């Protein structure tokens, strides 16, 4: 079949060449639709359900919101698991679905269930689903600031409240319209509120209660429509306006009459624009600000959306009041452009290097160009394939592409055709006739097509283990493997069709096949060296074996990391403060921190999110701040050669001196992924499920001690649950009763006094602001004073609060975590110096024997050990199977197990070079390096395959083993060198690049380059020696016959 395709390609060569146009057209069209991002999206299919519950403590939020929501969601189709957290004022349930579930289907299901439980939830609370976005969603951020001399309409400088108003009512509605933006999230400043703050003694004097005020405000703040009347044929609408508009109007509202004298709001309270009890704040360069974040719809093209948002923001600037500036601080386009530039640079430079090598070694420009033409064509075909399979273009997916590897098949074919054409020209002393030429091309191609097809097939098969990775690793590396496989298959198809057709068309005329000086010198050196190797074959083989053993040992000394981190160029650092730290305190600490960071000359901007934004996409307590540090372009640094890790070190050292903060350095996208995926990140996580928080803590403590006592346990810790001190106002029921009060009256009074009660809405055009009744700030904050505040009695009298209630400050849960509908506390531990499996078994045994777990409580073991275990188990099956498949292919190709195994020895030999080069460059083992090893095995097998196929054919022709081996090796020297050189040179730009994203690709390129050098040397020496050695006896057998 292969031959008939080949024949067809050569016969119908012009038709086949015209397919180039189709490939081009299709490729370019697909490129327009290709989603481009910096990194692959590793978020799982999840929906967040947020319920904002102002004033609710964690316990109440859990009991009254989280529990019903979770219960309602149980049993959804394709549900993987749910987890939830309940914090002050917020309940967040995260629903994770199985991979591949349609997000809109999932949201529909949830919506339906949420509708059914509305009546169960406390009145006025609405669970809302988070934006349809992913970890890559935060593509654009901007701050809103006022120039110092800018003035509001009332002549005062802009306040944080005013800036927030501009964000909410001018900027946000406009940005939300940009295509691909699903949500514009705000944090910082204060939601504008009108506060009515009554003074307690005046309330007593006028015998007015909080309730009276709220009711009076509600009853005096309504517009009513009253139908219409017709008068003289004219229709008149009737309305009775009564909405309050200004502070003066609020002050004039009459609450009641005492002896005919009206009591107005202004008699008992002050009214002013006040600050909401906010859950989050934002700072920039050490000053409070308002921060907006545009979030991208799932699956949109982050580069275009971020760019569109930036353009829109420029438009919006015109509509802002004078002196107010909305300035972009983070724009994903920058990163994506940089990453794409890195990839493009690598690919273009690699391609150029490949062309140069081809030209130098083939000595024929046309042949070199034909081979090189495979590069763009296979690229375009790959892009088409990526769009069809929904793989996005990013550092990972494009990172493993090596054009050297891709053109290997074509190189072998073109080289052989050129050699054969040149040989025949030499023999016939002139240019061949067309038919003859076509014949030679056909023969030359079919001679090597089988080994090269087998080679490509093997490289493809080698990638199979990557497809068995699941979870985050799977999401990270599937696109990479898919892209490489697609590129390889494209190249394979091309070398089967277009390459022979092009050779047939263009390689007319005199074929110049000059053996370059380098090559002939190499050949002159190679023959004696090879003969020497035959002489000392034991030495050669044992040296190779030792080398393998040595590099295996070396591999264990290299450190390891899972995935090398993409350098996003910017820094994200989480500043963590002790739980219970208040928002204002946190803001103050953050301002100091930012000023210090800003003083680094390399830093362009620094801004932070503290606590939870309006839409709780990332519910942090006020004690935690996400700080984004945007660096200046490298050429503006005083020392452009300073590495980012050096800068990080300096920064860490400087920040370490600032008291009260703990830091986690990461990067914006990375941080977001961590927040969203947020599983247990330690080696072992023991989850304790149960009802009573105290009991859970107690059991967790027990388990923590057991884990700590087990050998190999490191960083064992318990999830923090406590930490938020709470002030409880505990009613004295008996005394309350004596004064004729219910508990609920006391609670209402406290809720209004401290938390505030909403008494309606004030409209300013479209803008709407809440009207709140609560105590003046001075009195709210004074805990001791609280005790003597007068509490009104139903009979108009009053008593001080301390008569009927006691105050109690004690630690309480800062957050309550649940998983799959049950409260849980997690104990985590890492393992040092012993293997994970036995450690986990030990832990399980010891816990079973020693821990007292009360009935109704149960444990669950999780953590990365699970993934590691399952990945190792899978790989332990898949890798041998893959090897067997490769072996099978080789056996198919040669019909001999011996030969197949000989070729196979190329693999470990190739690995030695990879390990050595990693060691030389001081790089750890990682999955990307692993991918390099995989590609390497393919190349090594390909080399051996081509070499051995030739030697065997020669042996069959000539009958003498030794000469056939030597001659075969010499003839194949050029293609082996060529494939090796193009494959390694193609990766050189990638190995040396320092641009954005290069660090992901560097290990891969390093491994391939090192490995190919070793594998080539070994293919050239060890393989012939091994072949000769193994077949010596059978040759003797042949001779004996």
């Amino acid at each position, binding site marked *: 079949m292969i031959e008939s395709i080949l024949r067809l390609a050569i016969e119908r060569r012009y038709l086949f060449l015209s397919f180039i146009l189709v490939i081009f057209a299709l490729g370019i069209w697909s490129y327009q639709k290709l989603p481009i991002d910096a990194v692959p999206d590793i978020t799982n299919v999840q929906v967040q359900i947020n319920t904002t519950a102002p004033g609710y403590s964690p316990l109440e939020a859990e009991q009254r919101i989280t529990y019903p929501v979770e219960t309602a969601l149980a049993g959804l189709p394709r549900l993987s698991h749910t987890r939830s*957290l309940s914090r002050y004022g917020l309940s967040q349930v995260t629903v994770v679905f199985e991979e591949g579930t349609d997000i809109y289907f999932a949201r529909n299901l949830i919506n339906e269930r949420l509708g059914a439980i509305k009546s169960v939830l406390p009145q006025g609370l609405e669970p809302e689903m988070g934006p349809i976005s992913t970890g890559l969603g935060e593509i654009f951020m901007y701050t809103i600031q006022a120039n110092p001399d800018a003035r509001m309409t009332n002549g005062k400088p802009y306040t944080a409240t005013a800036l927030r108003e501009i964000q909410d009512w001018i900027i946000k509605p406009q940005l939300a319209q940009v295509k691909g933006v699903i949500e514009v999230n705000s944090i910082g400043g204060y939601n504008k509120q009108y506060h009515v703050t009554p003074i307690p003694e005046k309330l*007593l004097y006028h015998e007015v209660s909080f309730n009276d005020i709220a009711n009076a405000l509600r009853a005096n703040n309504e517009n009513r429509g009253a139908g219409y009347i017709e008068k003289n044929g004219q229709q008149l609408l009737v309305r009775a306006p009564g909405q309050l508009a200004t502070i003066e109007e609020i002050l004039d509202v009459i609450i009641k009459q005492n002896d005919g004298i009206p009591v107005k709001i202004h008699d008992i309270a002050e009214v002013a624009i006040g600050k909401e009890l906010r859950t989050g704040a934002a700072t920039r360069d050490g000053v409070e600000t308002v921060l907006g974040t545009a979030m991208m719809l799932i699956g949109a093209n982050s580069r275009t959306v971020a760019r569109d948002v930036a353009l829109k923001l420029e438009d919006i600037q015109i509509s802002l009041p004078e002196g107010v500036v909305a300035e972009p601080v983070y724009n994903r386009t920058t990163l994506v452009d940089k990453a794409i530039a890195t990839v493009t640079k690598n690919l273009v430079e690699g391609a150029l290097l490949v062309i140069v090598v081809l030209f130098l070694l083939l000595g024929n420009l046309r042949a070199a160009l034909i081979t090189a033409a495979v590069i763009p064509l296979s690229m375009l075909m790959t892009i088409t394939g990526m769009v069809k399979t929904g793989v996005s273009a990013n550092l990972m997916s494009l990172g493993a592409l090596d054009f050297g590897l891709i053109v290997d098949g074509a190189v072998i074919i073109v080289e052989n055709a050129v050699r054969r054409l040149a040989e025949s020209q030499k023999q016939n002393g002139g240019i061949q006739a067309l038919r003859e030429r076509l014949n030679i091309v056909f023969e030359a191609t079919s001679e090597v097509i089988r080994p090269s097809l087998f080679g490509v097939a093997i490289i493809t098969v080698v990638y199979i283990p990557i497809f068995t990775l699941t979870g985050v690793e799977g999401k990270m590396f599937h696109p990479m493997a898919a892209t490489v496989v697609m590129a390889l298959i494209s190249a394979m198809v091309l070398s089967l069709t277009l390459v022979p057709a092009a050779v047939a068309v263009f390689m007319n005329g005199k074929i110049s096949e000059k053996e370059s000086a380098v090559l002939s010198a190499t050949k002159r050196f190679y023959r004696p060296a090879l003969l020497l190797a035959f002489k000392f074959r034991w030495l050669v083989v044992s040296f190779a074996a030792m080398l393998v053993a040595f590099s295996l040992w070396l591999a*264990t000394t290299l450190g390891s990391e899972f995935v090398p981190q993409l350098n996003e160029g910017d820094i994200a650092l989480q500043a963590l403060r002790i*739980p219970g730290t208040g928002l204002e305190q946190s803001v103050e600490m953050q301002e100091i921190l930012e000023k210090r960071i800003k003083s680094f000359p390399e830093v362009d901007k620094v801004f932070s999110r503290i606590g939870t934004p309006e839409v709780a996409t990332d519910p942090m307590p006020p004690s935690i701040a996400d700080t984004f540090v945007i660096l200046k372009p490298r050429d503006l640094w005083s020392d452009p050669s300073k590495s980012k890790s050096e800068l990080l070190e300096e920064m860490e050292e400087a920040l370490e001196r600032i*008291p009260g*903060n703990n830091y986690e350095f990461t990067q914006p996208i990375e941080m977001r992924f961590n927040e969203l995926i947020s599983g247990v990140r330690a080696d072992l996580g023991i989850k304790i499920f149960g009802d009573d928080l105290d009991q859970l803590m107690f059991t967790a403590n027990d388990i923590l001690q057991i884990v700590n006592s087990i050998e190999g346990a490191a960083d064992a810790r318990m999830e923090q649950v406590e930490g938020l001190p709470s002030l409880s106002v505990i009613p004295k029921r008996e005394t309350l009763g004596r004064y004729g009060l219910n508990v609920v009256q006391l609670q209402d009074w406290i809720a209004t006094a401290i938390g505030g009660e909403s008494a309606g809405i004030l409209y300013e055009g479209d803008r709407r602001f809440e009207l709140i009744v609560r105590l003046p700030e001075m009195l709210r904050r004074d805990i001791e004073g609280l005790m003597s505040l007068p509490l009104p009695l139903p009979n108009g009298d009053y*008593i001080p609060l301390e008569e009927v209630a006691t105050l109690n400050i004690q630690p309480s849960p800062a957050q309550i975590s649940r998983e799959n509908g049950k409260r849980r506390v997690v104990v985590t531990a890492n393992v040092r110096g012993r293997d994970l499996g036995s450690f986990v078994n030990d832990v399980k045994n010891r816990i079973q024997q020693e821990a007292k777990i009360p009935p109704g409580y149960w444990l669950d073991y999780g953590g990365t050990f699970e993934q*590691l275990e399952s990945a190792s188990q899978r790989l332990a099956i898949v890798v041998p199977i893959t090897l067997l498949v490769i072996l099978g292919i080789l056996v198919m190709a040669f019909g001999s197990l011996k030969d197949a195994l*000989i070729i196979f020895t190329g693999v470990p030999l190739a690995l030695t070079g990879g390990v050595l080069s990693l060691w030389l460059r001081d790089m750890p083992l990682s999955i990307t390096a692993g991918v390099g090893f995989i590609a390497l095995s393919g190349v090594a097998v390909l080399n051996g395959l081509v070499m051995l196929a030739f030697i065997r054919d020669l042996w069959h022709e000539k009958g003498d083993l030794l000469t056939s081996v030597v001659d075969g090796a010499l003839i194949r020297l050029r293609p082996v060198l060529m494939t090796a050189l193009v494959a390694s040179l193609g990766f050189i730009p990638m190995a040396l690049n320092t641009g954005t994203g290069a660090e992901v690709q560097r290990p891969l390129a390093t491994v391939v380059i090192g490995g190919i050098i070793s594998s080539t040397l070994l293919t050239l020496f060890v393989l012939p020696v091994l072949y000769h050695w193994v077949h010596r006896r059978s040759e003797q057998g042949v001779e004996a016959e």
Partner: protein
Amino acid sequence: MKNYLLILSLLLGIVSPIQNILADEDNDGEEHEETASHIDDDLSEKVGIVTTFASPGTLSQTITVYGELTQAPENTHEIYARFPGIIKSVNISIGDTVKEGDRLATIESNESLKDYPLHAPATGLIVQRQANPGELTQERQLFTIVNLDTAWLEFRVYPAQQEKVNKGQTILVVINDQSLEALVTHVIPAADKPYALARVKLSNTDLNLSPGQFAKGKIHTRQFDVALTVKKEAVQELDGRFGVFVKNNESYEFTPLVLGKSDDNFFEVLSGLDSGTEYVSENSYLIKADILKSEAEDND
């Protein structure tokens, strides 16, 4: 067959490096309990840490009470006619100020049919007049004279506070947005009410307060001279113990204290601290946060 063994042993090497790659390590720093924090002086100034020296002081405890202004019974005079009769003339009207002995009205006695004068028993303000010429006095009240030069504030003292309040204590009164200092004249139980009344006599000549007005009072219940005090905002809780951060060069050490009495601003130190020790009086939370910062983590 021997040949295969060599080759196979080379091949086996492939699986192990891949498994190695999957072993992800992460190195966390070690944790140890600390009760001190080091902050450079230039930095501590920048972050707003203020220190002060522990010193003897006076604690002054107060309680807050509410009450209202009442007319003093001794300053209120209800005027009746001594002998019933016909009112001949009335010399004053509401709002007039009268002196002791001023003639208020003239009444013709029913028995003697003689006119007799009705004199003001005290100096004060006429606030009520129910008498006009020609009317019979009957047994009714004719005038009310009130002297507002002194007024009584009656503050309610609820059971929880009662034992702290005694007569003679000073009280800071806030009434009508004015504040003034006075003394608790006496404490009396209120009839049929759960509270007692702390009565405060006020001179009202300049204040012009009227009865019924609401007042807030802060009674200085007790005063102590104590050997050592620390500022209240300096005290933080660490691992269930209360204490302050003592500055020693550039290091701040948590020092647990045994605390005694307190007032609005200060704690009495019973033991744990020497007089003259420099401790953090403002922004002490920062130092607590610094000491505990290893506990800070993000667990969502």
